[in-house]
């Protein structure tokens, strides 16, 4: 019985976290890109974003993809290499020259970042309510 309650508790929490992540992505990216946004994802959030109507999640990256979401983008096709990246880790955000923004967790707290230079590089306009995350 205890086990069942624990599993339910974990699932509810996971669902709550996933729901939070999905809501956040739906609150940010559709304000920068036209929906539906075709995305190539290299992260655990792929399954989360797949259920959204705002995103078209593709399994292989090509030139039709709008953005890349995730971390450690190695061996990308050439047509995909210069696509704007929305990082899911601090290191990816810092190290990837194409990352225009990031959403990751640090010390249990959500962190949102936008890189002004890269936003300009891709002609992306950040809505006013997200300007405070610009660095």
């Amino acid at each position, binding site marked *: 019985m205890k086990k069942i309650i624990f599993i339910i508790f974990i699932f509810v929490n996971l669902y709550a976290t996933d729901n939070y992540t999905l809501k956040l992505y739906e609150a940010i990216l559709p304000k920068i890109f036209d929906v539906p946004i075709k995305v190539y994802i290299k992260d655990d959030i792929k399954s989360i974003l797949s259920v959204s109507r705002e995103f078209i999640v593709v399994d292989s990256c090509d030139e039709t993809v709008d953005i890349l979401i995730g971390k450690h983008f190695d061996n990308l096709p050439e047509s995909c290499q210069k696509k704007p990246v929305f990082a899911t880790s601090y290191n990816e955000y*810092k190290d990837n020259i194409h990352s225009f923004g990031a959403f990751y967790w640090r*010390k249990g707290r959500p962190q949102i970042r936008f890189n002004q230079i890269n936003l300009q590089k891709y002609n992306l306009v950040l809505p006013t309510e997200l300007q405070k995350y610009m660095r």
Partner: protein
Amino acid sequence: MRKNRFTNKTIIYIFNIIAVIVLLGTIGIYSLFQKTSVFIKNTNRTANIEYIDNITSNVSQYIIKKIGSDDFHATLKQNKTMRQELEHTLSLLITQRYRYVYVVDKIKNKDSFRFLLDGASNKEDKSEFDEEYIPMNLQKWDEVYKTHKTLFFKHHNIKSLWLTYLKPIVVHNKVVAILVVDFSLEDHNRIIKSLHKLNQTFEIAVGFSIFIFFIIILFAYIDNNRIKELKRKSSKISRFNTILKEKVKEEVEKNRQKDQHMVQQNRLAQMGEMISMIAHQWRQPLTAISSTSSALRLKAQFNKLDNTTVIELSDNISRYAQHLSCTIDDFREFFKKNKDKNKASYDELIQGVLDIVETSIKNKNITIKKDFTSTEIFCTYTNEVKQVILNLLKNAEDVLLENNIENPTITIKTYHNILEVSDNAGGVPEDIIDKIFDPYFSTKTKKDGTGLGLYMSRTIIHEHCKGELKVANNKEGAVFTITLPSS
């Protein structure tokens, strides 16, 4: 009967009081538990804060001493070894309870902080030096910079953290950095879960006692109604009892009057019979007196009356008159009611009756056979027993005459303490033999019977004399048996 110390009503009151006490007690304990629960949580938090406060004071002093300047960022940027050494010190603080321990400082002209030191050893958790960091509840972090005071706050929207403790690192009266300790929710949850379990138990107890309370109230209500109904019925029964008592009293009075009437009737009937018997008894002496007086007259008419004859005949008349007087005395004595018991044998009792009735019976050509063997002496109401014997003899006489029996015979037999009066009239029909002692039951057709003779006889023998009067049939006729208790 001893009165019950506790009535039903008292028991119900006691139960109600107990129910209220149980309910209030449980609610009181529950309320106390709630307060204690809050107290435990507060104490746990305070103890944790006090503990971490002591540790972080030492750690911050160590960091200040180690860095040795008020520009932590610059010093640590240049000295990676020092950074690693200090981060190792911070990592020692990380336990299951303290999830994250790190040092940040505020970025100038920005609403964000940057990591200076991070005790995390896990690569996923570990921040980089100089990494920008925007914590939640930013104003509280700023407050630490402004007030120079330690601060802690609870998290409601971070699922893994319970509370965050912010310790300002002050150098030259200026906050140069903040030492941050994030408390794990997991550890705190253990206490919360235990308290929650206890809380659930209390909630069940409160629920149960409320349930019991209402059950008792319900039962008390039902019982109260039952008692009311019982009282109503009891009062109805009591009313019925009163009516019944009055009815019984009325009936007893009626019966008494009826009995008196019956006795009176019986007495009148007996009187009638007595007068008839007196007439029989007097007939012979009166005839004798008449004959003597006629003889006296004739002798006087024919001048043959001498002194001797006058004396002889007047003596005869005097003797006959005496006999008449004795007969009256016998009858008077017979009907005199005994107040006290007297001693008598069956012989004496029977002879007393025969003195009155024998002549009358014999005049009707009825033979009286006597077979007296009883020698017992009884202490009884003799006149009443005589009346019974007389009644039995008269009944036998009546039935013998009514049935025109040839050689009518009445047999009187005594042995031990038993007296039998039998006849040869054929007996009592079996279908009425059980009813002949009932009042107003009579078989006499030619002669008017009151139907009270045998009833009164049985009452006298059974209730006054404590004996027994029975009837049975033998080959010739009815046999009435009187059994008197031996004295």
